[in-house]
């Protein structure tokens, strides 16, 4: 505890209490009874009476593990930078070496129904705010270390202010999108035995070595998508819950220490969601030819369906739910 106060520079008080404690112990036993009692009560977080109505003002001292602050500045702040920019670099290099996953035999032109209009809209209801939350969250967590030194004071002030405002507003549609996607899509995302085999060959996306040309089985969602779905569901919950504590302190009245813990959990979840998001975006837009169409029209090319989701395609063909887009 003494180290704790030293770190704050309150050496003064602590030095005095410790310097004199030896004296009093030597003096008399009764004195030791009340020795430093008030001070230890204060250090232990005692609360009392005050005329102030300020928040937490009835408690003189609140202690917590100060290493929380180091975790945030030394690990989480660079961590989020890496999760975003590091992943982008890794992916660009990977695609340069490996190439993308082309559709064998090209587009068939026949478009298979895959997502409803409603599915497509809740995807973007979650996705667009998510992107903005990542960028604004990055400014809040890492900005003072990685951006502020390179820009002017006025520009930094508007940047961080704008980030907070946008973050606060975007949190709401994100949570609605997250909740709808998690609840409505879960049934298609349950793990199956063939997902293991998919993982073993990295989904058939590796274009060299023993993996080349493999097309593992996949249902409506492949194992990679399932992993993303459940990570998004779980860490989306953590980030929403911790975010609510920070956004509506008057509603939940969290303690200060709980708010700091929420801040840490929020950033850890942000790092995980960001890293997954980069992979997800690369897969959909660049890596998997024809993949993006699903979240534009809700339909996918028949070749794409047979190549990437063969079990699903076989199933809908068999049970008669296969629906083609009307060719206008």
């Amino acid at each position, binding site marked *: 505890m003494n180290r704790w106060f030293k*770190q*704050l*520079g*309150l050496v*003064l008080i602590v030095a*005095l209490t410790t310097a*004199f*404690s030896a*004296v009093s112990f030597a003096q008399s036993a009764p004195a*030791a009874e*009340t*020795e*430093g*009692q*008030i*001070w230890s*009560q*204060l250090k232990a977080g*005692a*609360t*009392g*009476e*005050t*005329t*102030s*109505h*300020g*928040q*937490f*003002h*009835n*408690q*003189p*001292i*609140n*202690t917590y593990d100060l290493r929380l*602050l*180091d975790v*945030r*500045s030394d690990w989480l702040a660079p961590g989020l930078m890496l999760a975003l920019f590091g992943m982008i670099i890794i992916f660009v290099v990977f695609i340069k070496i490996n190439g993308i996953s082309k559709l064998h035999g090209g587009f068939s032109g026949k478009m298979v129904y895959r997502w409803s209009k409603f599915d497509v809209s809740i995807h973007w209801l979650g996705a667009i705010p998510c992107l903005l939350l990542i960028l604004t969250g990055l*400014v*809040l967590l890492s*900005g*003072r270390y990685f951006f*502020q030194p390179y820009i002017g004071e006025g520009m*930094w*002030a508007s940047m*961080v*202010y704008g980030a*907070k405002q946008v973050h*606060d507003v975007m949190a709401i549609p994100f949570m609605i999108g997250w909740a709808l996607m998690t609840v409505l899509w879960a049934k298609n995302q349950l793990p199956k035995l063939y997902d293991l085999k998919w993982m073993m060959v990295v989904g058939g996306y590796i274009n060299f070595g023993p993996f080349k040309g493999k097309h593992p089985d996949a249902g409506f969602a492949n194992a990679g998508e399932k992993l993303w779905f459940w990570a998004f569901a779980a860490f989306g919950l953590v980030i929403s819950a911790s975010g609510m504590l920070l956004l*509506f*302190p*008057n*509603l939940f009245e969290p303690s*200060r*220490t709980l*708010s*700091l813990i929420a*801040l840490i959990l929020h950033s850890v979840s942000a790092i995980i969601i960001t890293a997954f998001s980069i992979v997800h975006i690369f897969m959909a837009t660049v890596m998997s030819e024809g993949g993006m169409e699903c979240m534009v029209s809700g339909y996918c090319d028949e070749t794409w369906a047979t190549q990437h989701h063969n079990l699903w395609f076989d199933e809908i063909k068999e049970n008669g739910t296969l629906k083609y887009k009307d060719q206008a």
Partner: protein
Amino acid sequence: MATMKFLCDTKRCIECNGCVTACKNENDSALEWGIQRRRVVTINDGVKGEASISVACMHCTDAPCEAVCPANCFYKTEDGLTLHNKDTCIGCGYCLYACPFGAPQFPKRGAFGSRGKMDKCTFCAGGPEEDHSDAERQKYGANRLAEGKLPMCAELCATKSLLAGDAEIVSSIFRERVAYRGSNSAIWG
């Protein structure tokens, strides 16, 4: 340069709230409704072991508020004070979570209780604006240090329980008191 510190001698504090009033009066121009930079807390009120302590920002050396602020609005003065820039503050509240002394306070703004710009004790040393400018008075209140004066709260403490000033001097005054009282149990009760 000096390192400025506060010290509250709980053996002397009589819970008169003179420091609170002195601060409110001195820094009135900057204090929005409901903001109180200094407060007196009484523990064990009315029972054995009752003690009162006057608390405001302690101007920590390795300040948690400074470490956690996403906008990086805190700065150290050459007097060892931890001050902040309200123009950069985004009202996120992190500093209030991190501060061990509950010093940062916020004017209420907006529908969901969103916060305005943080306010806390400046050690009566104003802010980053030009000394004694209107802007400084509006945002941070008094700048007594620039006039060679010490904080109003401590100056007006009737029992000289609350001491403010150079850490060396403050601690030597306190050490003298303790020596005079003759026992360590006379420090904190």
